[in-house]
């Protein structure tokens, strides 16, 4: 799971690394983690102070921050530059109640799971395993917020055969 050292890469190597499927998948996962990190700030603010749900939101937020840092390191190790987080993100809907906050948290996890499936599609066995572990972690967090399971976490319905 390591790549060329950035200090030894030429400019053209950087350019090819940045456009590779591996880097594209890592950047997509990073973008999802950055969005989740932002979103959990909103989730936590809408949950009752000191509640178990708020503690859960804090724990999940920390998980996403760690995953973000891990992805940034993987991208940098491959000679590319991690795309910085946006200043703000468009939320899927208004988040004015604890119930809406829980729904947002589950939605964030669904999107994170989908992004990590991009890593699972790569031939690199290490990244594939890492991606699968992260899909599972996101699905578990989504289950905790939603209180129900999904048959195919992260997979768009269009990819399922009827």
């Amino acid at each position, binding site marked *: 799971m390591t790549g060329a050292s950035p200090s030894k890469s030429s400019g053209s190597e950087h350019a090819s690394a940045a456009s590779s499927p591996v880097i594209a998948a890592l950047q997509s996962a990073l973008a999802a983690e950055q969005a989740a990190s932002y979103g959990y700030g909103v989730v936590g603010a809408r949950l009752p102070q000191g509640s178990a749900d708020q503690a859960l939101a804090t724990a999940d937020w920390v998980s996403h921050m760690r995953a973000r840092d891990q992805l940034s390191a993987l991208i940098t190790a491959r000679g590319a530059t991690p795309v910085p987080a946006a200043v703000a993100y468009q939320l899927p809907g208004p988040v004015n109640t604890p119930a809406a906050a829980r729904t947002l948290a589950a939605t964030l996890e669904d999107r994170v*799971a989908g992004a990590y*499936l991009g890593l*699972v*599609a*790569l*031939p690199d*066995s290490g990244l*594939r*395993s890492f*991606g*699968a*572990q992260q*899909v*599972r972690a*996101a*699905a*578990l967090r*989504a*289950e*905790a917020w939603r*209180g*129900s*399971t*999904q*048959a*195919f*976490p*992260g*997979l768009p319905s269009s*990819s*399922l*055969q009827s």
Partner: protein
Amino acid sequence: MADDRAGPGRAPAGPTRRALLVVSAAALPVLLTACKGIQALGTPPGPPADVDVLRGAIAHEAALVADYTAALAARAPGAGGSGASGASGASGANGANGANGASGRTPAALAAVLSDHRQHLAQLTSRLVEPAGTRSPAAGHSSAPASGPAGHGAVLTMAQLEAAEQAASDRLIAQLGGLPPTLAQLFASIAASEATHVPYLQAARRGR
């Protein structure tokens, strides 16, 4: 006219082409016998490794479907739990019953998880393309492996079902290497779903 097969500068005279053909034809039965029949010469190559992995996943998923179907039937009104305790010693078929007991939410949770597994099985089966005449492992339950300690066909306790879910999730993730990308994604997604069944069943067991 001189025989052009024996002229100077040519290869030494050996058996004629006709003689070689005759000898080859005579030796054919001997060769076939040595090879234990002509069928041995035509053995087709085995299926690719990912086909075997897919067949195994289908068999395990079919076993989970059978396990949940049995668990639900044992908890159906009027079942009385006798089927569960009689088949496998599982004592939590109806009502709360110690660590492996069930709450009132258990049947609904089992039905929800069974629905997930049926969808998993359908998607996995749809990815398997087999030549005509070969048997799918999902076609018959006899080839499905046991998914829990109590074995296939027995009524598992809630704790055994949870353990089977975790094992199934871990197994799918361990098999990702070498699979085509879209199949790997399906395996990873199903593995994630099966992992979520563990806390979901635990919560139902506790009456969450």
